[in-house]
């Protein structure tokens, strides 16, 4: 194993890891927005919203994220959507992650005992007041760990945008393999950096989960 080479190139990998983090954060934010909208739409009293949300979830969970990215990035211009690789990566992965998060969030909301909603409504709270004051604060606590799983998957999924040439960790590793012919070292370096990002995120999720538990 060429340790010397790894030490020489790792600053460039750190830079790429930073882009992976930025990509993950933006994707997570977009995913949460799409997921929240999707979850509420699935729980809506309007059949049309429920249908749209169910279609969204099954389409984006039912096809490879890589195909979704290719359609958006390579196919987009054909239907008038011009995005650079980074934008396409964030939007594609964000919408994909949203489909998974929608199910997580919906699951959290419907797992709250219906007596809670009834007690809130009985006091005179509106549907949204009951949601905001009573259901969501409890559901959010239950969602921390499953959303952590979604986050874990999402960080790993950012590797896919290498295929549309976003210069993040995986793409950087491939690029250095082109010039060094050392795939073992380069992929190992990328793998270690992914592991660190995911480990730190995972600890953060555990910490948050403990912090929000009801005494």
């Amino acid at each position, binding site marked *: 194993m060429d340790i010397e080479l790894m030490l020489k190139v790792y600053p460039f990998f750190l830079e790429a890891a930073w882009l992976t983090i930025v990509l993950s954060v933006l994707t997570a934010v977009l995913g949460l927005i799409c997921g929240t909208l999707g979850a509420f739409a699935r729980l809506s009293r309007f059949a049309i919203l429920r249908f749209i949300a169910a279609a969204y979830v099954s389409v984006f969970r039912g096809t490879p994220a890589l195909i979704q990215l290719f359609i958006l990035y390579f196919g987009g211009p054909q239907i008038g959507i011009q995005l650079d690789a980074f934008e396409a990566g964030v939007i594609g992965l964000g919408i994909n992650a949203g489909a998974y998060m929608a199910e997580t969030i919906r699951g959290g909301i419907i797992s709250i005992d219906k*007596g809670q909603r*009834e*007690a809130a409504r*009985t*006091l*005179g709270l509106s549907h949204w007041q009951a949601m905001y*004051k009573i259901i969501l604060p*409890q559901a959010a606590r239950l969602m921390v760990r499953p959303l952590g799983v979604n986050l874990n998957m999402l960080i790993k999924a950012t590797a896919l945008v290498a295929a549309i040439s976003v210069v993040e960790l995986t793409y950087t590793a491939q690029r250095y393999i082109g010039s060094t012919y050392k795939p073992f070292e380069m992929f190992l370096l990328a793998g270690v950096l992914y592991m660190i990002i995911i480990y730190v995120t995972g600890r953060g999720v555990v910490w948050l989960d403990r912090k929000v538990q*009801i*005494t």
Partner: protein
Amino acid sequence: MTDEKSFVEIRHAQKAFGKLEVLKDISLSVDKGQIVGIIGSSGSGKSTLLRAINDLDPLTGGEVWLDGVEVNQKLPHRQYEKHINQMRQQVGMVFQHFNLFPHMTARENVTMAPMLLKGLSKDEANTLAEEQLDNVGMLERIDYYPSQLSGGQKQRVAIARALAMKPKLMLFDEATSALDPELVEEVNQVMRKLAEQHMTMIIVTHEMDFAASVCDRVLFMDQGVVVEEGPPSMLFKNPTQPRTREFLRKHLENAK
């Protein structure tokens, strides 16, 4: 039919889940300050009837009136929501499983709705919570979370939470059924105190002795109809209907 309405008036209440008829044309009036008990085996429709009064289980037919206002009137969705939220503020409800909000302390359980819906300031709401929790003997546990309370204590907080909205009517849906036997009395005491203060109450219960001691009138329901009703002295001691007798006899046997 005259249009003279009692304080609580249920007219021809019907409720069906598909083909299953849970309530078959039930009418009931309750005067202000009256305490009405509803007894019957599970599946008789007694909880459904109670829950229809604040539209928690909407009726499929019939009317519910409270203090001269039709509760389940036909309105477009948005208007109806506004109307029903207004109505529900006037009706306190106590559940078998308490349904306290687990992420809030006893105090917060009591202050939440008055602050949100009646615009009480934090200080006003705190005073109200202290008053209401003191009333049910729970002042000492005001800053405890529900998970730190016993069943009886939870139910007393739940009663305080309902009373904090200053309701005109209190509905009790088997308020003591989920409690350990030794905790039943502390909740019954709170309900007796309310009775002494002439709160209008409708009480669905399995406890015949309690019903007999606090209710002005008791209804026996079976298979979606009111089989018999009358003052407890009559209904419990001299039931006229065979089904009532059968129910009371079985109940007595189980109690032994």
